[in-house]
Every structure is written in structure tokens, then in C-alpha cells.
């Protein structure tokens, strides 16, 4: 069966507090399962979103909270998080016992989604975009 072709956006907003990151995980999990992602992809998305939100809170880039958007685009489930952290490029920590938390989070997200796009303009809020394949999404169209 062909994947979804029409965009459909679902979104939530959480306050800038660590206790609300679990809400993002629940949201991502529900949307990804409903969209037809494999369970491994669901967990990867939940982890990437968690790392991104945690780093945004750590860097203080989201004083007014975080927006998380999910949409179906040409067979992919696209997750966008804004403001995200100012991740710029993958950097695998040389010493696994002593990387900074930001390096570890950045390495994890990049390992999970090599095509992750992180937009970090000098004069604006950084945002993160990941796309995961959807196997079957009849209910999500």
C-alpha cells in the first residue's frame, strides 16, 4: 500500500519544564503508531524528541515553551521541534565517560536520524526536523 501523500499537521505545546517532556514522548508515540511507523521507529522518534527538548531546556533556548509538530509528507512522518537546541553537527564523543551532556545528546540524535536537519539561525530560534518512514497510514490521511 502506498504511503500517505497529503500533509496533515498535529501539534502540541509544552511549558519549559522537564516534567513535561514525558508529554512530548506520549504525543510522539501516539502519532507515530497511528501513522503506521514500526515500533523501532516509534522509539527512535520518542528518544530524538526527548533529547531535543532536554537540550533546549538545558541551553535555555525555549523560555516560552516548546512547540512540537507532526505531519505526513510524501510517505514520511515529519517531526518538527521549535525552539530546539543549537545542535549544529554530529560529534561523537571520544570518551563515552566524559562527554558533555550536549555532545552526548547531539551524537544520539544524529545516530538515530542521520538526515536530521537542525536550523540554527544567528538571529532566530533554532528548530529541529526529522523524517521517519511510514509503512502504512490509512487512518492518518
Amino acid at each position, binding site marked *: 500500500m502506498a504511503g500517505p501523500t497529503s500533509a496533515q499537521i498535529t501539534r502540541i505545546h509544552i511549558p519549559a519544564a522537564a516534567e513535561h517532556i514525558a508529554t512530548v*514522548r506520549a504525543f510522539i508515540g501516539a502519532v507515530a503508531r497511528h501513522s503506521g511507523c514500526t515500533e523501532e521507529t516509534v522509539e527512535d522518534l520518542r*528518544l530524538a524528541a526527548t533529547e531535543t527538548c532536554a537540550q533546549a531546556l*538545558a541551553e535555555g533556548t525555549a523560555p516560552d515553551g516548546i512547540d512540537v509538530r507532526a505531519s505526513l509528507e510524501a510517505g514520511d512522518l515529519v517531526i518538527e521541534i521549535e525552539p530546539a537546541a543549537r545542535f549544529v553537527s554530529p560529534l561523537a*564523543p571520544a570518551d563515552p565517560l566524559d562527554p558533555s*551532556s550536549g555532545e552526548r545528546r547531539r551524537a544520539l540524535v544524529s545516530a538515530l536520524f542521520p538526515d536530521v536537519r537542525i536550523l540554527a539561525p544567528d538571529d532566530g530560534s533554532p528548530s529541529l526536523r526529522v523524517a521517519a518512514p511510514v509503512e502504512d497510514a490509512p487512518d492518518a490521511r
Partner: protein
Amino acid sequence: MELGLENRPHAGWAIVQVSGELDLHTSPRLRDHVMQLIEGGARLVALDLAKVGFMDSSSLGVLITCLKRMREHEGRLVLIGVQSTPMKVLQLTGLDRVFDILGSAAELETH
């Protein structure tokens, strides 16, 4: 989801049964719990993660902190029952080679 922390002794080890999800919000409770055990004299501590379905890198920081503190006291900290998603996090960060990871509490008797 609430984080559950329950102690149970086994073969000379202090096993901490952890249940729930470990992240930036919940993992400090685990750190405080393990630190209390170490400060209380425990030198063989096993974290049973069989009921932990999710773990992020903030939690790894906590585990590393606990491991370093235990090593300072010449004790041992091991992980048991690590589920697939937390194991993936450990593997992607290379920490699966740093921690002693056992399949079940029964393996503590010969470890």
C-alpha cells in the same frame, strides 16, 4: 509516569528495582537513591532496569555519576535486565562497553 525505586537484597548485592521512564525529570531521583546507598556503605549495587522501557542521555549522565562514585569507593555497580530501547542508547553512546550488563539477578551469584 512516576518512577519506582525499590530495594531488595540478593546474594550480597543491593538490587534497586527501577520502574518507569528515565529522563531529565526523573533520573535525579535515581541518582539520589543510589548515592544514598553508597554513602550508607553499599559496595555491590545492581540496578534492575527490566521495568524501564525508556531511558535518555540525561539518565546516562546519572548512571555515569553513580558508577564513578562507586569506583571511588572501590565498589561495583552493574546493570541487569536492560530492555531494548535503553540498550540501544547504551550501545549508541559506547557505554555498553563501560558498564557491566547482566541478563538477570541470578547472574549476580556468579559475577
